[in-house]
């Protein structure tokens, strides 16, 4: 049977000069690892919704990408994680926002879709729901990486300086 999978690991201004060949290889390796996991699900006849969850979990585990471990820091110096999932077959959907302790946010979104009558849960209640569903909980420090922390400090230092584009700060 025919199946197909596409993924992304974020978009932005990525200058070729900023990405060393070694770093580029790591990004491509991370993408290929995620594709392989999703491919395995789909090739054996698994459901698309299982494939996207499994694929995104791999990306969440990879500290190169801004999700799960390796997530960026908010203004208060903490990591807040958001995720969602939708099953096109049933139009069922689930989402979570501002998680701080659930290791795989996409699985929390899946749990909201499959095991609650809601679509979107946020904050402490979302983490509590995920824990009650048996999803792995971690200390918030699990999500921290040095590169993201340095980016946060750089952002913080830039506040109040003239010429700083605060579009992303306020949206």
């Amino acid at each position, binding site marked *: 049977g*025919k*199946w*197909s*999978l*596409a*993924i*992304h*690991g*974020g*978009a*932005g*201004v*990525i*200058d070729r000069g900023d990405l060393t060949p070694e770093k580029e290889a790591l*990004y*491509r390796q991370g*993408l290929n690892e*995620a*594709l*392989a996991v*999703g*491919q395995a699900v*789909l*090739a054996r*006849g698994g*459901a*698309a*919704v299982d*494939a*996207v*969850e499994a694929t*995104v979990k791999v990306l*969440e585990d990879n500290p190169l*990408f801004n*999700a*799960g471990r390796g*997530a*960026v820091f*908010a203004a208060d110096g903490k990591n*807040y994680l*958001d*995720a*969602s*999932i*939708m*099953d*096109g*077959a049933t*139009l069922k*959907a689930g989402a979570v926002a*501002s998680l701080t302790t659930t290791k795989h946010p*996409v699985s929390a*979104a899946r749990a909201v879709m499959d095991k609650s009558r809601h679509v979107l849960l946020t904050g402490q209640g979302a983490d509590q729901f995920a824990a009650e569903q048996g999803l792995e909980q971690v200390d918030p420090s699990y999500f921290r990486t040095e590169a*993201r922390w340095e980016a946060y400090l750089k*952002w913080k230092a830039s506040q109040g300086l003239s010429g700083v584009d605060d*579009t*992303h*700060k*306020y*949206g």
Partner: protein
Amino acid sequence: TVGAVALDQDGHLAAATSTGGLTGKMWGRIGDSPLIGSGTIAIDGQCAVSGTGTGEYFIRQNAGRQVCDRVHWNDEGIQSAADATMAEVGRIGGDGGLISMDKDGKVAFALNVSGMYRGSVSSETVAKTAIY
């Protein structure tokens, strides 16, 4: 932000997105990633989408739903729908990209920035990745 869209052997579509948001985002800020219809959508027979970028603009353009509506209501191809939607995101000041897939598993990437980490594989194509 990361995301995936897929078509399975039974012809069903799905989409998922996960993110840490934006560096320095203010407390309580929520972008498009957890909003069904903006950052994530999947509708059998139409399309599946996952977006990444400045979420507020993807929300205002209802980006995911817009791609599907362009396909479903306007009979646009998936690449045309993805490009037009990103153009609308860009028109109001947003940047980023999205991945999309039509009912037959055809993949379309669209972005208005210099790069998006992305990849695809299917029963008919080998795995490939791209950045720029």
